C-alpha cells in the first residue's frame, strides 16, 4: 500500500489557482507554526529528513485530514517528544515542567540571528565518490521498499516510478541520503541524478508522446537498465 504522502498519479479534484489578493497565510496560527518549526529546527536537534519523516509518519487519517501547517505542527510535536525534548505530561498540561538542559537552551535561535540563519540554509552537498552512472545512460528504478534502511522507514522514491526505466539527464553531485539521515543513522552521501521518464512509460493514458517527468533519484535507488 502506498503511504498517503506519496501522491503522484492519484486521481484528484481540479486544482484551484489562488486569487490575486490571497494572503500569504490563511490563519494567524499558520504563521506561528511556520516560525516555531523553523526556530526550533535551527537548534540542530534533527535534519530536514527527520522532519519530513515525522510529518509523513502521522496516522493516515490525520495526514489526510490535516492542513499543511497542521501536519507541520503534528510532526514537530511528535519529534520533540520522540527526541526527548518535551514529555507527554507537558504536552497534556500545556506547560513546561522543568527547564531543558543548558546544552540545548544555549543553542536556540535568537531574533538577531534569524536573517543569517535563513540565508545560510542547510546545504546537503557533500564530498564523495565519482558517479557510477553518466548522462544519457538508461537506468531502472528499484522498488521503494527495497530502498528502506529501517522497516517502514523513509524514502524519497515515489511509487509511480517504481520499476520504470528512465534516462539520466543530469548528475547533481553527492548529497545526503534521506533514507538513513531521517532515522539518525548518518548522512551516507550518494550521487544524486535527475532521471527523465517518458510520460507514456509511466502512464498509459498520457496525453502526449512528447511529455516527460523528471525525478531526482539517489544512486542506490537505481540499477543499470
Amino acid at each position, binding site marked *: 500500500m502506498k503511504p498517503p*504522502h*506519496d501522491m503522484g498519479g492519484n486521481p484528484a479534484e481540479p486544482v484551484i489557482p489562488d486569487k490575486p489578493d490571497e494572503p500569504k497565510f490563511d490563519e494567524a*496560527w499558520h504563521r506561528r507554526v511556520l516560525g516555531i518549526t523553523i526556530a526550533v529546527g535551527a537548534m540542530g536537534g534533527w535534519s530536514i529528513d527527520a522532519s519530513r519523516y515525522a510529518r509523513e509518519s502521522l496516522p493516515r487519517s490525520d495526514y489526510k485530514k490535516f492542513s499543511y501547517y497542521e501536519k507541520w*505542527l503534528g510532526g514537530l510535536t511528535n519529534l520533540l517528544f520522540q527526541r526527548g525534548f518535551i514529555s507527554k505530561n507537558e504536552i497534556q498540561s500545556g506547560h513546561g515542567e522543568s527547564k531543558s538542559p543548558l546544552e540545548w537552551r544555549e543553542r536556540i535561535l535568537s*531574533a538577531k540571528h534569524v536573517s543569517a540563519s535563513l540565508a545560510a540554509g542547510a546545504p546537503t552537498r557533500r564530498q564523495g565518490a565519482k558517479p557510477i552512472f553518466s548522462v544519457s545512460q538508461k537506468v531502472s528504478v528499484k522498488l521503494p521498499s527495497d530502498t528502506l534502511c529501517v522497516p517502514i522507514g523513509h524514502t524519497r522514491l515515489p511509487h509511480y516510478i517504481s520499476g520504470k526505466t528512465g534516462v539520466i539527464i543530469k548528475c547533481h553531485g553527492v548529497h*545526503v541520503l534521506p533514507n538513513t539521515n531521517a532515522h539518525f543513522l548518518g548522512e551516507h552521501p550518494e550521487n544524486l541524478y535527475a532521471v527523465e521518464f517518458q510520460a507514456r512509460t509511466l502512464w498509459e493514458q498520457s496525453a502526449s508522446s512528447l511529455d516527460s*517527468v523528471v525525478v531526482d533519484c539517489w544512486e542506490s535507488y537505481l540499477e543499470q537498465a
Partner: protein
Amino acid sequence: MLLCRMPHDHDENHAHHLLPAEPALRVKALETILVEKGLLDQQAVDAIIDEYEHKIGPQIGAEIVAKAWSDPVFKSALLRDSEAVLHEAGLAGRQGEHVVVVENTTDIHNLVVCTLCSCYPWPLLGVPPAWYKSDAYRSRAVIEPRKILSEFGIDIPKSQSVRVWDSTAEIRYLVLPMQPEESIGLPVSELARWVTRNSMIGAGLPMKPADNQV
C-alpha cells in the same frame, strides 16, 4: 507484510493527539511549553514570520528572471550553473540551497511540483501558495500536466513538450519563462513586474503588469 502498517502506528509515538483539538490552541500550547522550557525565543519566531511575510517573496525570483532576459551573459551563466550564480547573489538560503533553473522555449514547457511533500524554492519565491501544496496538485501534476495547465488558463500547443520536475531531493527548480515579445527592450526594473510567481513554477505565463495577478 510490513507495508500495511504505517510508520509509527503506535499510540506512544503520537504525542500530538494530547494537544487541544482546536489547531490555534494546539499551537499556543506547544509554544508555551517550548518557551517555559527555554527552547524557544518568541522574538525569533516573530522575526522569521516577518522575513516570510514582508521580505522573502516572488519579487526576488522575478528580478533574477528579468536580469536573465536582459543580459545574455548572465542568462547563460544562470542556466549553466544556477547554484553558483544564486550563491554569489546571496540567494541560496533555506530551501533553496541547490537551485537548478530550467528554461521554457517554444519546444518545451517546464512545470515544477513536489509529489511527496511541497518542496519549493523559498529564497526565490517565498512561502508556497495553497494550490501548490494541495493534494490535487501534488497528485495530478505528474500524470496530467496539460490538464492542470489548462485549469490555470494555459493551453500548450501539441508541438510543445511538457516536462514536469518532481522535487524529490534537495534540488529546487525555478522556471525561466519565455520573455513576452512586447516587453523586449524594457529596463530590468520594469521587466521584473512582468514576471508572475506562477510563471516561475511553470503554472503561468509572464504578463503585462496591469494584467499581472499572481
